[in-house]
């Protein structure tokens, strides 16, 4: 265990926090237009009203952490995915201000416009995150100067579109599950139907994405194959030394992941929305773990040559900076957990409208 691995884990945790938290409010956004009537739409907006801003901070902080700990990843990722990333930013801008502006005016056209911006922005963001992850899994054209050699259109392949759509269904289901905790009455019944409607394509696309990933890039399994499947680039000494332990743990997570997925419809059926939400959150944690473990120690794979790949050592800041920033994170992150807990406790329970609502 060195500072580089610790930072790989910290960045992973920040992205996991982001996926679980902003995942549900992007999902709520994706479902927004399916809600009929102003009251239901306001309930949906206000269910994420106090928390969406904090959820987005996880992304901003993950960006800052990448910049500080792995500047090469930060630079390569955002300059390679230039236009898709700009579209992602526009989507995030639109959905953020839509929440604020939508209910400030009673005109129907006004509300419909911001409703559409909010929903399309959320859907775009969910798709683009998935497409970005798909590109990182398959690798892209990173050259000797660590810059992207491909074009905008190279980033959109059937596989990356598949991961994009999968991510959209995952977030949508996750958002619907969140809404089951925040709604009551007829809206709650409708939301529960949404969960099941999103669940079927989610499971299908999950299976499809898994098969496609293993087929197109078997090396994603290398780190949990008990040493049978060779890694494409370098294999980390930690994996070589502990490949049995790591593989056993990883397959346990696979099993738990399956159970969590199966538990979602069960918990909804038994009217245990919080249990369903936790299951969904655990499932997302597991997916990010598979993704991270599949890549490790690489962070961005070059499909031009493995020697151009960026990994936790050649992409990292100096040891001094990693150490200082790790200490600062260990001081700061417990506070983050405390704030987040306070906010979610304060706003727990069913969402109702009052005069400070959106």
């Amino acid at each position, binding site marked *: 265990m060195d500072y580089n691995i610790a930072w790989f884990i910290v960045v992973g945790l920040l992205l996991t926090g982001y996926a679980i938290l902003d995942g549900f409010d992007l999902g709520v956004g994706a479902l927004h237009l399916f809600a009929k009537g102003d*009251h239901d739409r306001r309930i949906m907006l206000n269910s994420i*009203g*106090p928390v969406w*801003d*904090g959820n*987005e*901070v996880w*992304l*901003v*902080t993950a*960006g*800052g952490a*990448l*910049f*500080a*700990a792995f*500047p090469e990843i*930060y*630079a390569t990722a*955002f*300059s390679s995915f*230039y*236009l898709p*990333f*700009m579209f992602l*930013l*526009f989507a*995030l*801008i639109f959905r*953020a*201000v839509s929440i*604020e*502006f939508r209910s*400030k*005016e009673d005109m129907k056209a006004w509300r419909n416009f911001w409703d559409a911006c909010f929903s399309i922005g959320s859907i775009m963001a969910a798709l683009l995150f998935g497409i970005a992850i798909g590109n990182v899994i398959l690798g892209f054209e990173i050259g000797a*100067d*660590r*810059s*992207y050699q491909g074009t905008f259109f190279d980033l959109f392949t059937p596989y990356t579109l598949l991961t994009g759509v999968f991510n959209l269904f995952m977030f949508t289901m996750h958002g619907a599950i969140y809404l089951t905790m925040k709604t009551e009455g007829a809206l709650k019944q409708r939301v529960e139907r949404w969960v099941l409607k999103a669940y079927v394509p989610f499971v299908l696309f999950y299976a499809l994405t898994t098969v496609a990933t293993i087929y197109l890039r078997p090396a994603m399994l290398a780190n949990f194959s008990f040493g049978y499947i060779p890694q494409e680039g370098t294999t980390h000494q930690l994996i070589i030394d502990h490949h049995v332990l790591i593989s056993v743990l990883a397959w346990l997570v696979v099993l738990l992941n399956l159970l969590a997925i199966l538990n979602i419809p069960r918990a909804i059926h038994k009217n245990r929305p919080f249990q369903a939400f936790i299951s969904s959150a655990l499932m997302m944690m597991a997916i990010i773990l598979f993704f991270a473990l599949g890549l490790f120690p690489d962070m961005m794979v070059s499909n031009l040559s493995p020697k151009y790949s960026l990994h936790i050592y*050649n992409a990292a*800041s*100096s040891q*001094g*900076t990693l150490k*200082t*920033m790790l200490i*600062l*994170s260990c001081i*700061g992150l417990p*506070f*983050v957990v405390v*704030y987040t807990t306070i*906010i979610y406790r*304060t706003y727990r329970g069913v969402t*109702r*409208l*009052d*005069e*400070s*609502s959106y």
Partner: protein
Amino acid sequence: MDVEQLSRLQFAFTAMFHYIFPPFSIGMGLLLVLFESLYIITKKRIYETITRFWIKIFAANFSVGVATGIVLEFEFGTNWAAYSRFVGDVFGSPLAAEGIFAFFLESGFLAILLFGWNRVKPGMHLFATIMVAFGSIMSGFWIIVANSWQQTPVAYELVTDAQGFTRAVITDFWGVIFSPSSMPRFFHSIVGAFVQGAFLVLSVSAYYILKKKHLEFAQRSFFIALLVAAGASLLQPAIGHISAHVAYEHQPAKLAAFEGLYETQREAPLYLFGYTDPETETTTGLAVPGGLSFLLGWDTDMEVKGLDQFAKEDRPPPVNAVFQSYHIMVGLGMLFIAMTLLALWFYFRSTLFEQRWFMKLFMFSVALPVVANQAGWYSAERGRQPWLVYGLLRTKDGVSKSISAEEVIISLVLFALIYLLLFFTWLYVLDKEIKHGPDTHEAQETAYPDRRERIDVLSKTLH
């Protein structure tokens, strides 16, 4: 235009647009703390009305600030990848710290500030307000720390790795945090933000006073904001002076451009206004002889380095732009002192709110601190050119290699359209909130018969 120029334009546009909003949030954050403390201490309902109205205005600013701020967190990577690789070790740290220590604090307690009035105890709400104000100042701290290192880089060494990539690496973390310019620039920016936030409250209050609406609300808001505006305006020249001094010591070319000083000389003049001519390398205008020498060394005979000490390619281009923006900032700063002192004088003669011309002036002055803050940052950033990191990395060497001019044009045009839409929607929403005005005590009372019942009762009436 090439990728470099387009990227500079895009960064300038997105950063300047973003910077309309955070100073409002920082300045109004301080005022919200004052308003709400007065409410908690005096228990007067008028302060509840005041606090709750300004929270609504604060919210509209804040969300546009957040939405446009996310862009900046990633724009170093999208357009300035070479720069990010070069400085990530140094520059990334304060950015990460900003997220961990400021943004989470700010966004977490913002939820209570905006939606918690009926959910948490009054003391807890005040605490949340203080934390949001503190968090917004801390985010200013970290980002100015990062920017200041670009202005006055210290505590680093250049390291070349096995593959031949050179980058700057921190040698002393606290040295980076407290680089020579970071503290003066931090205080200068935050005090500028206090002025901007206070002027928004002054402007809206003056509007109500002119309309003879919500008078008690408006006059109390006006007076408290006036105290903040006057205090901040008076403090600003002293901090600005220190900041200019640091610039002279560490970035003499920048200060020479600010002051339009081409020729190194004793008894350097201080231009009050004028223009610079790049052909003849002279500055024409009204000047205090020896003024600049006096301000920099308290000695009119001190020799001040001019632009002639620097090779043409190391001078901030064009000098006149920086000269003018710097003078706009200074001139407006002086105007704020005059306005606020005059208003205080009227106030203590109890005639302030009858001065209709003066109320009108305050109503329209809301844009002036925005211009002053923008002009200040424009001077600081344009004055740093041609360097991205002063003396270390040129702007042209920092740009991303993998992006094309077409891509940047697409994003730039979209930013322009989207931000235009945002700007006018923001103005529209603010205008609507202001025209609606504060809710009266009666409206607040009848809506909530019992504090514990408030939320449920209201949601039933809305169903």
